[in-house]
């Protein structure tokens, strides 16, 4: 038996050894070629300053070696004396191995380069990166499988058709999601916005960006609500970046509101003597009501009527001279209700001293003294900087504006409005605080006053610019 084998080997030694020799020769040549090729590529990449050359070379080095072996094995098999059907079968196995390694190499290469590229756009969330890479891996794997199936003679046309339909369906179902992902990528690529920006969309949504996710941008609105804005919407609409994060206040400004109720006192005057007598005795909340009632009740009027005393003296008594004098009492001049009361009393008494006769009004047209009752209530609005402050100021009720400007200054004896106090004490913006403090709020409608204050603060903030 052994003798027979030896004889067979002597007869066929050439058929056996030549493939092995060819196999090793191929490996040696291809390794040599690989080395030359890599040196050349390194040189070319270096000349062109391609930053990813190391990734490319390191990733493909081992696969190239594998491909050299596969090539050697394939050629040697073709030269071997094995039957043709074995050659074909073995050729398919080697081709399949080659496709697998090639696919794997491409996937690894893309993943590594893509990761580095996306990392430079630090705005792209990790979730998006993972998703894109996974998508590419799946796509290349599917292509590789289809090629292999075709190689092994399997019918791929129905599979491709199915795949095509599946992809189309998925694209259709997730079109918004896909759109948002790509929009997010575009936003990031162009570095349009970043976390900390205060943005305002043409559709009205506004707030600070505090997170940029793969499909949505999260913003915090002035009333502390979290809004999710789809990335595609950001790209489609005009977005105004109102500012980078402005200076933070040492203490936030908490907006309050004030609601009032009218309490009747039962006191009434039918002439100016009775008016002044009662004025001397009533409490501050009554003086406050009659010098501020018109602001709320007729705040849409321009110019606003003066205090209730002036109106009554003119309308009910027909005493236009005294009416004008009382209208000219400038409430803004006074920092206490007591001082304001004194001035009103003096004006009336001065007129009484000049009169020989005190005229009564008609029955039913007496002056009724009313007390103002106030409930100060907290709101959900809190401002940490001037940008937040003006965006809140745009939306708060007129009661809120009224409270901080009128009620706090005079009724709560602060002497100056709450806004100026906060801007000066907590933001250190003395000039702006003074500009607001010297605004005479009695000369504006409440809406007009709101606009004036916003304009003053806007000027103080950096100039807006728009993108979109």
């Amino acid at each position: 038996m052994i003798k027979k084998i030896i004889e067979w080997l002597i007869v066929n030694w050439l058929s056996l050894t030549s493939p092995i020799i060819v196999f090793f020769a191929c490996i040696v040549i291809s390794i040599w070629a690989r080395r030359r090729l890599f040196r050349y590529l390194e040189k070319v990449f270096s000349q062109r300053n391609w930053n990813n050359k190391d990734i490319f070379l390191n990733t493909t080095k081992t696969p190239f070696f594998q491909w050299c072996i596969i090539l050697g094995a394939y050629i040697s098999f073709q030269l071997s004396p094995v039957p043709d059907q074995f050659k074909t079968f073995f050729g398919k196995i080697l081709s399949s191995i080659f496709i697998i390694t090639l696919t794997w190499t491409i996937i690894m290469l893309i993943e590594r380069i893509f990761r580095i590229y996306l990392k430079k756009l630090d705005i792209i969330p990790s979730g998006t990166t993972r998703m894109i890479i996974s998508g590419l891996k799946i796509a290349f794997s599917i292509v590789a499988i289809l090629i292999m199936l075709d190689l092994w003679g399997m019918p791929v046309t129905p599979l491709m058709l199915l795949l095509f339909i599946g992809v189309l369906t998925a694209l259709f179902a997730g079109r918004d999601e896909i759109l948002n992902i790509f929009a997010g990528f575009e936003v990031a690529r162009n570095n349009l916005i970043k976390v900390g920006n205060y943005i305002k969309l043409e559709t009205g949504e506004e707030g600070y960006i505090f997170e940029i996710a793969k499909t949505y941008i999260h913003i915090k609105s002035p009333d502390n609500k979290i809004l999710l804005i789809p990335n595609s919407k950001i790209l489609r609409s005009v977005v105004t970046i109102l500012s980078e994060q402005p200076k933070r206040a040492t203490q936030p400004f908490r907006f309050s509101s004030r609601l009032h109720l009218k309490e009747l006192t039962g006191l009434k005057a039918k002439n100016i003597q009775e008016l002044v007598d009662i004025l001397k005795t009533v409490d501050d909340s009554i003086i406050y009501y009659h010098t501020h009632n018109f602001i709320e009740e007729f705040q849409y009027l321009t110019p606003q009527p003066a205090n209730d005393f002036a109106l009554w003296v003119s309308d009910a008594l027909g005493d236009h001279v005294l009416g004008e004098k009382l209208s000219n009492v400038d409430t803004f001049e006074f920092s206490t209700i007591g001082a304001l009361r004194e001035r009103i009393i003096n004006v009336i008494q001065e007129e009484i001293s000049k009169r020989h006769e005190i005229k009564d009004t008609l029955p039913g047209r007496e002056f009724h003294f009313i007390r103002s009752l106030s409930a100060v209530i907290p709101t959900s609005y809190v401002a940490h900087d001037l940008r937040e402050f003006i965006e809140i100021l745009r939306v708060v009720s007129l009661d809120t504006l009224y409270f901080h400007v009128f009620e706090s200054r005079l009724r709560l004896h602060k002497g100056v409005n709450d806004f100026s106090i906060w801007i000066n004490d907590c933001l250190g913006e003395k000039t702006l605080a003074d500009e607001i403090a010297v605004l005479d709020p009695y000369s504006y409608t409440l809406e007009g006053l709101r606009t004036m204050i916003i304009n003053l603060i806007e000027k103080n903030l950096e100039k807006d610019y728009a993108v979109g």
Partner: protein
Amino acid sequence: MPLDKDLSYQSKAKLHDYVPIVGRGTIEALYTLAEALSGKTVININSTFSGGGVAEILTRMVPLLNQLGVDTRWMVIKGNEDFFTVTKKFHNALHGRKENITPEDYDLFLDVGKKNVEEMQLTGDIIFVHDPQPIILISKKEEVGERWIWRCHIDVSNPDMDVWNFLYPYIIHYHGTVFSAPNFTRKLPNRQFLIHPSIDPLSDKNRELPESTIDQVLNKYGLDREKPIILQVSRFDYLKDPVGVIEAFEMVRKSIPCQLVLAGGTATDDPESDKVLEEVRDRASNNNDIHILLIPPESDVEINALQRAATIIMQKSIKEGFGLTVTEALWKAKPVVASSVGGIQLQVKNKFTGLLCHSIDGAAYALKLLLTNPEYAMQLGKNGQEHVKQNFLITRHLKDYLMLFLFLYYDNDVIYL
């Protein structure tokens, strides 16, 4: 047995529906106030579930207060026709009109009142009594409730003193009283609050209507849309002076083509309405341009359509409570000609939000002025609408009620919630 209003009807309007009209801050403030009243139960008591301004306001207010989280209920006292005849006399007498009120009338009022005191199963913390009919319920003050309020919707500044003195001992036992206007009051030892009534911009009576609906209503009543419409909406009541309106219209009609619509209904507590209606029909019978429309209480859309179709809206009352029909007219941006009485003076600032008159001649002059100067009329209407938006919508009324309930527990002028 006294009745307890079934609240299952619950108003269709939700609080957030008012945000586009009054702003979010206003609604949020209401919730804050309501929270401060957490755990309190409010019981509203009046004499009828339908007809008249009080029932109309409560129909809207009670569900909204409940939406805010304030447990609010509505009950009515029970009374027969004789009782309501007496209370109608009381109502007129408190307005200052001379009425023949006999000792038997007072006895009947007391008897029905006492029966209600005995039969009504009252619970709750804040008992809110509306108008004189249920006023005797204050006798239960020691048994029920923490705070009792009497809401007077009538102008009692110049009342028949017999009736006032009869009611006075009951009134002064309430913790607080509420009036609609400063000049409706009399000096009282207890606290008096001023709360104006209001209208609901989302109710059938005030919401926007499509033109097709307005046309349908005009066709139904045979009104010509091409001819200017002068409208007065009110119950058929001497105090609304419907005959005076007809006389003013006839003066205008001599020189300007136009039509007059007197639209109104009757209330269950107003037995006099039928008599007034008959008189008005007689007075108008010879004039084809005068339309007397007896409209049932539930016809809010029809009233709304008539007001929106009107060229000018009148309210020529001799005496008036607050005059919600004026508020409705102003809200629809209509030029208004109204008597300078009662709460109308708070709503119509002469030559700014409408025109005030003091006589039939004055009313006729104002009508002519507006019919011949449509741009001026339009400007008055626009100002009037803004005035109502600021001061006479239901959200302001809700705020006032919540504040009232709260301040009954405080003596300070300023409270911090």
